[in-house]
């Protein structure tokens, strides 16, 4: 009995981790600046390529993953400085600009590195409960997702930066008048967002084939989680991921991945009919 229960939890954790890791970066950028980064998938791809490149050079996997996330974060801050910064008053144009960037990066990668890169295998290790065997790395991913949420909670709720960031989020003009350097806050937030995207790519790099278009595998999940979650990462994205993971898990188990994805999309379209502002609007209102 407990083996079955654990198996259900394991499947849930697998989907939940995927949703949180792929959506967290996007949600932070959206929550802070109201901008959807269409090149999100390309930052994920960047994280994966850097990880694999470093591992092939002999760097241990966990260190390679951290370095990959940092790389994505730094590139993100450069992109913010050069492109995204101009569009904070024109969110729709920011969508187009980052999409243009995404096209450029994906297709240039196809031109330069070609379609396939030698991957690194999933870290070995499995354990058995009852008659089932489970991969340890999948639980590591779940742990990473929870750690990301905890880390974001600490950054945004317990630090001085977090206080200023939340003030900027609520009323940028007022925060600026009180002396907050909103430009720098935006820049750092964008960097955190893309670093989380890079971390997502780094964590999933060992489990999938590396192709320049791999970002597309993550974007649907990250988009729908942010659409349902709304502007607040902790009160929106996390519950949205729990909810979507349950739907997805149930459908995956009985009908397979693709039906799971379609079912999740249908659920999202039904939900936006009743909750256009996302889950966080409801939760935040209740909380007041």
């Amino acid at each position, binding site marked *: 009995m407990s083996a079955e229960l654990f198996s259900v939890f394991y499947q849930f954790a697998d989907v939940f981790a995927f949703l949180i890791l792929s959506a967290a970066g996007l949600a932070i950028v959206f929550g802070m600046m*109201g901008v*959807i980064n269409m090149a999100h998938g390309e930052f994920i791809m960047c994280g994966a390529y850097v990880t694999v490149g470093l591992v092939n050079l002999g760097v241990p996997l966990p260190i390679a993953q951290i370095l990959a996330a940092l790389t994505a974060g730094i590139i993100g801050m450069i992109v913010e400085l050069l*492109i995204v910064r*101009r*569009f904070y*008053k*024109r*969110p*729709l*144009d920011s*969508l*187009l*600009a980052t*999409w*243009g*960037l*995404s*096209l*450029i990066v*994906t*297709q*240039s990668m*196809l*031109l330069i590195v070609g379609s396939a890169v030698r991957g690194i295998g999933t870290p070995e290790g499995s354990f058995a409960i009852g008659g089932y065997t489970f991969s340890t790395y999948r639980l590591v991913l779940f742990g990473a997702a929870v750690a990301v949420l905890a880390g974001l909670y600490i950054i945004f709720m317990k630090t001085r930066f977090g206080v200023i960031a939340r003030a900027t989020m609520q009323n940028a003009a007022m925060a600026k008048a009180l002396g907050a350097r909103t430009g720098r806050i935006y820049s750092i937030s964008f960097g955190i967002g893309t670093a989380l995207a890079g971390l997502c790519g780094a964590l999933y790099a060992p489990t999938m084939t590396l192709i320049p*278009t791999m970002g*597309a595998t993550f*974007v*649907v999940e990250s*988009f*729908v989680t*942010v*659409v349902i979650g709304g502007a607040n990462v902790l009160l929106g994205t996390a519950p949205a991921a729990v909810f979507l993971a349950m739907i997805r898990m149930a459908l995956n188990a009985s009908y397979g991945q*693709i039906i799971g*994805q*379609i079912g999740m*999309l249908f659920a*999202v*379209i*039904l939900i*936006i*009919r*009743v909750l*256009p502002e996302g889950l966080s609007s409801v939760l935040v209102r209740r909380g007041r």
Partner: protein
Amino acid sequence: MLKLLDGPQTLGRGRIFWSCFLAVLACALIYPLFADSYDVGNFAYFLIWIFMALGLCLMWGYGGMLSFGQTFFFGIAGYGYGVLAINMGGGTTTIAALVLSVVVAMIAAGILGYFMIWGGISGIFFGIVTLSTTLVLAFFLGQTAGPEWHIGAARLNGFNGMKGMDPLTVGSFDIEGSALYYLMIALIVVVYIALRMLVNSSVGNVIVATRENPQRAEMLGYDVRKYQLLTFVIGSGLAGLSGALYTSWGQFITPSSIGLPAAAMPIVWVAFSGRNDLTATLVGSFLLLFGFQTITVYSQQAALVLMGVLLLATVMLAPQGFVLGMGKLVVDWWSRRRRRDEAPALADTARLQSDET
């Protein structure tokens, strides 16, 4: 009716504009007499995509709804045409397949549009929900390789795509080559004129008013949701028309014409051309398709990189679109040279600028 051809929502009016229009049309009509059939087929191929661009121009430029889902409806109608043409048998029924597949795409647009528009999502979320839907359709069709995925006699065939449907046929006459080219020209003229009339009519004014300020339009007593849904269904239906014509042109369709990067292409065309005007979109999209096809012969990736660069450059340098900007420059220069009274033209141009809120 004809009075609606010129109006505040479309640029280009008067004798000079319509003379140019007729001259271009005449050139297009006599073109097959001089060119070889391969080039005519290529031209017909560019024209296929124009409908999708005009549809997006209507939704985005006039209605203020940035849909990333043009290729979703393109795919539904494209696959729809294939399934219907294979199952209903060839011959004249292919015409019915064309019409029905566009209707199916419009019904799909009606359903998706109902949930989004009545749910009240707009702006950024409208874009990413439509894009998510599009990508999921592409993923779904990509994994339908097995023999169990079929609709009637039509195999979906996964990434290799569906093939084996008849081209458009009347009796025993296949509409291919220059016949298809003339059909495209006729359809584009009809669609272009009809859209011009639509946006200059009272319905069009409400659509534009909704873009400018939905609340104000609602306060004036219009149920803006109905107008938005209408715009969405028409715009998406035009994408469907492109899809059905595409399948009939090449007698095949694959999921790659739905997913990324295909989904970004209509956005690039319309943004580059100038989303606020139908004529600019028509001209600009054609130029881009021509350029894209020329470069694709050498390297598809390079062509797509260029598309990305164009999109980025457009939003950074000329958010209203390059072709529209050029057109306005030429018109300004022309009217200044003629020392005409250009005040009314400027007033109309100003009315087309949306105050980005």
